[in-house]
């Protein structure tokens, strides 16, 4: 099974993503903030990460930078309501491989997961 780490401070969004990915055959782990995501990344060793931006403590962009530092090959797609052009550019420049604006359709997230796993 391919493994996906879902990082979002909103339990509602984590649950939606987890259900959608589990139903599609992925093994899923969750993290509620950036620090937990970094810890889970080491333990769970996911094949891909879905990462929110607006989170308390360590936000998504700071987490992305740390993940890329830890693993330059990290496969990350941002999933956020904060779809400002400057944010998209910064995330892609930092190393995100896709950018999904919430609220999303299930198919869009699954397409992003397939894309980052290529």
């Amino acid at each position, binding site marked *: 099974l391919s493994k996906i780490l879902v990082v979002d401070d909103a339990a509602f969004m984590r649950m939606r993503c987890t259900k959608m990915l589990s139903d599609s055959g992925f093994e899923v782990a969750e993290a509620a903030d950036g620090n937990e995501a970094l810890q889970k990344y080491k333990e769970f060793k996911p094949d891909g990460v879905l990462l929110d931006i607006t989170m308390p403590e360590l936000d998504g962009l700071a987490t992305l930078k740390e993940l890329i530092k830890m693993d330059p090959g990290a496969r990350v797609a941002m999933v956020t309501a904060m779809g400002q052009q400057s944010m998209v550019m910064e995330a892609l420049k930092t190393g995100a491989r896709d950018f999904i604006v*919430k609220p999303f359709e299930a198919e869009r997230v699954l397409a992003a997961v397939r894309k980052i796993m290529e």
Partner: protein
Amino acid sequence: MIQDVAPANIDLDAWEELMKKGIANAVSGLSLMVRKKICVDSVSISRVPAKDVISLVGGPETLIVGIYLNFSGAADGHLMLAHRPEVAYELLGMILGEEPVKRDDLSDFEQSALCEMGNITGSFFLNAIADTLEITLYPSPPAVIIDMAGAIMDIALAEILQESGEVLVVDTAFTTDDQQAGGRFMIMPDESFMLLSQHYAS
């Protein structure tokens, strides 16, 4: 009148246009979230004493569900979605695809869904402004507070009250097109936010 509330060096037409862009995008985000068309019933802009903001949501002892976030970056300010509990529960039912909640306490999961509604509405408002001006505005994670309006506003306005006794409020009233649910989206910008219109005008 907006003329009465703005600093003298502000291009009011540009500022109002920016607000309308932001509100239209916020409503579009909310509509996507609850999967219903949303109609804007009214938009008003006023500068009021902080204690009077409470009257906009029905008086200090009115029980409301407030979803609050602040923002920073190129400008600062505060955003609040305020609903009567029965309306918030109706919206929650739409988000979760379930019957409306019929009780006063919300589970962590349900509160999280309301937070996400605030996150999407607030972020969409800021996205439109930021993209128009080619700047970045950072929303904070939202907080859901279920309490009397007076108590909620004490929390939400505490920071503003440290700076000024008056609050600039952009107040949008909305309903779903089937009139099933409605609420208020309130933007309380700092003066730095009004100054953004100078970039827009130029």
